[in-house]
């Protein structure tokens, strides 16, 4: 049995859903996209074109929720199902779009560059805890206008995992689609086996910017899976009550699903988010707060009730380095998301309110995730007799290490962590240099990178990807892209 928690009782879930429907009718949703407004108007919503507000009747939302698929898969670069957005499948990917990297050598937060991204992609490829790669940070050595697509380009070059990504502009989404098509071989191949999902963020409260709304519609048209990342920031951009924040999340997601399904019924879409509470001392938006995780777990419950695949932002910490705070925040939130049965949990590796990514933290978080995945496998009855027969056979003075039963089962019952987790004796630990978790993680980053196997990518695909990225770069005044490791020049 997969263990599961529910933070809301059934009555509360229904009340949240009801208030979600209510909000879509009054005050409605503000949408800075004429295309979305006209889609909604044509379908019978009450649209005020001047105020850009759509009041969406409940049956329209219900219809969209019905046409939205309850599940879909993402495929890896070799065409295998690698991620299931469906039911209570729980999967993890690193956090996205950081502006800084915590440099493992210097301990400084600094702007990342191409070489950092390549290392990141290679490292993620070697860590089985990550079911997908995310476009984790923005490289400062390319034109800022191509910051979003360049991440995807590098991810496709260096990783075969599915990609959790997103566009920062309206036009770049199309280039990103071209990259995915080049990777898949054809638009049909991409539609049949989607490789990537695009995050789109409504603006709290109840508003869609032109950028994100257009991204949402374009994803629907291309049948590229979209992930609504609704961010009620409880106390600043949403009600401070956790239930109130979930209501706002519900309404925002409902509006997104409706626009998306009107653009292309049946296209895959995810009920996701990156909420946070607002710290009333500093105004910051802590990802590691327990209440942040509670909002996530609760809205996932609402999403499941409405038959939607789910996503959340967890396993991130607000600490500035990898310390006890980073460990407990990431650990607790990973556990909470997993027990809530959230299909894709993004956020690993992140520090400083989603501002920074860290390779060392990715390695530590991979340990957390592996343990959490073990938890999800639950406790099983392996034998007809659970233990009594064996204990009786071994007797009062017996030991279990030498039993065949132990040999048969230990590797399935126990998750064996990597050397990042210390379970040695004090003396052994001291003799090995009294290393901290971070020291060990730093070493593991290096040793894993040494094991990285390049993605076997046909030359013509590699060239096609490069052409697309270079064309976009030239459009924004960059004659050449930064050299990649192993490039001839």
């Amino acid at each position, binding site marked *: 049995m997969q263990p599961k928690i529910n933070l809301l009782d059934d009555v509360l879930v229904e009340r949240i859903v009801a208030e979600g429907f209510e909000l879509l009718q009054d005050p409605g949703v503000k949408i800075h996209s004429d295309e979305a407004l006209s889609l909604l108007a044509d379908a019978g919503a009450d649209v005020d074109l001047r105020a850009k507000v759509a009041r969406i009747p409940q049956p329209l939302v219900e219809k969209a929720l019905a046409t939205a698929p309850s599940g879909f898969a993402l495929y890896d670069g070799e065409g295998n199902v690698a991620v299931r957005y469906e039911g209570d499948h729980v999967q993890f990917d690193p956090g996205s779009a950081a*502006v800084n990297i915590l440099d493992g050598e210097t301990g400084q937060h600094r702007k990342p560059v191409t070489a950092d991204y390549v290392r990141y992609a290679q490292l993620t490829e070697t860590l089985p805890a990550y079911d997908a790669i995310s476009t984790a940070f923005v490289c400062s050595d390319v034109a*800022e206008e191509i910051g979003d697509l360049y991440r995807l380009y590098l991810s496709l070059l260096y990783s075969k995992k599915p990609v959790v990504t997103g566009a*920062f502009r309206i036009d770049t989404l199309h280039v990103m689609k071209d990259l995915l098509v080049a990777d898949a071989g054809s638009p049909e191949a991409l539609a049949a086996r989607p490789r990537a999902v695009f995050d789109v963020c409504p603006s709290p409260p109840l508003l869609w910017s032109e950028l994100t709304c257009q991204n949402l519609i374009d994803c629907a048209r291309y049948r590229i899976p979209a992930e609504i990342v609704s961010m009620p*920031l409880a106390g600043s951009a949403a009600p401070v009550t956790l239930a109130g924040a979930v209501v706002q999340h519900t309404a925002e997601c409902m509006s997104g699903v409706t626009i998306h399904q009107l653009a292309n019924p049946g296209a895959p879409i995810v009920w996701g988010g990156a909420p946070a509470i*607002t710290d009333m001392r*500093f105004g910051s938006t802590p990802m590691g707060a327990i209440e942040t995780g509670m909002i996530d777990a609760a809205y996932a419950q609402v999403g499941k009730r409405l038959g939607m695949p789910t996503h959340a932002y967890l396993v991130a910490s607000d600490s500035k380095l990898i310390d006890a705070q980073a460990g407990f925040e990431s650990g607790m939130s990973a556990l909470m998301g997993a027990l809530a049965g959230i299909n894709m949990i993004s956020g690993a590796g992140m520090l400083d309110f989603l*501002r920074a990514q860290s390779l060392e933290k990715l390695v530590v978080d991979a340990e957390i995730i592996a343990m959490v995945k073990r938890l999800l496998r639950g406790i099983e009855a392996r034998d007809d007799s659970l233990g009594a027969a064996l204990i009786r056979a071994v007797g009062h003075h017996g030991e279990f290490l030498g039993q065949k039963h132990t040999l048969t089962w230990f590797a399935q019952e126990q998750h064996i962590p990597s050397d990042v987790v210390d379970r040695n004796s004090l003396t052994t630990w001291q003799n090995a240099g009294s290393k901290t978790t971070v020291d060990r993680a730093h070493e593991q980053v290096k040793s894993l990178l040494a094991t990285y196997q390049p993605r076997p990518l046909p030359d013509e695909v590699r060239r096609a990807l490069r052409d697309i990225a270079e064309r976009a770069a030239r459009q924004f005044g960059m004659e050449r892209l930064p050299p990649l490791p192993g490039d001839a020049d």
Partner: protein
Amino acid sequence: MSQELYTQLAQAVIDGDEKVAMSLTKEALTRGLNPLEIIKEGLTSGMEVVGEKFSRGEYFLPHLVMAGNTMKASLTWLEPALKTSGMVRETLGTVVMGTVAGDIHEIGKSLVGTMLAANGFVVHDLGVDVPTSKFIETVRETGANLVGLSALLTTTMSVQRTVIEELTEAGLRDQVKVMVGGAPVSPQWAQQIGADGYAEDAAGAVTLARRLVGADG
């Protein structure tokens, strides 16, 4: 007598009670009290208490924002009175604040605005996704001496530079000090684009603004 009224007004600011503050302000004006004194002895002294409690960790952001709103509401009554009597409110400076074009991140910018207002600056908050020309216009109209530019995206950071360039072009650059902030912004970036200062958070923004207007001697 008037002292009692000021104390009540200060308390209304501390309590964030707009209704009470407005009626006390009206009463003070009908009694013919000096608007400058009403501001100083009533509103500002209340705001100071809130600021102190906030920095001691006794009060939280909602207190600060409610108090700020209360003060603002009272000022809408007091400002016309100041004007008719030809008086000028003493402030540390006038700030034009906004999130640059293409960027809709609001919270940090608003927080900075609130803290500046709570600390004696007049703040013109232009909101988010503010067209560059709007910054220029508002600086010209208000005679502001500070500009605060917020950008949360790597793709919109460069707009901070554009605003600075346009201020120069409009001949306003010498009149204002420009502060920049937001997630991807750094002191190096501020220097690179010729801004006058960078602050990492709202408290830092206040220190910076005070320094830029020479309020700290």
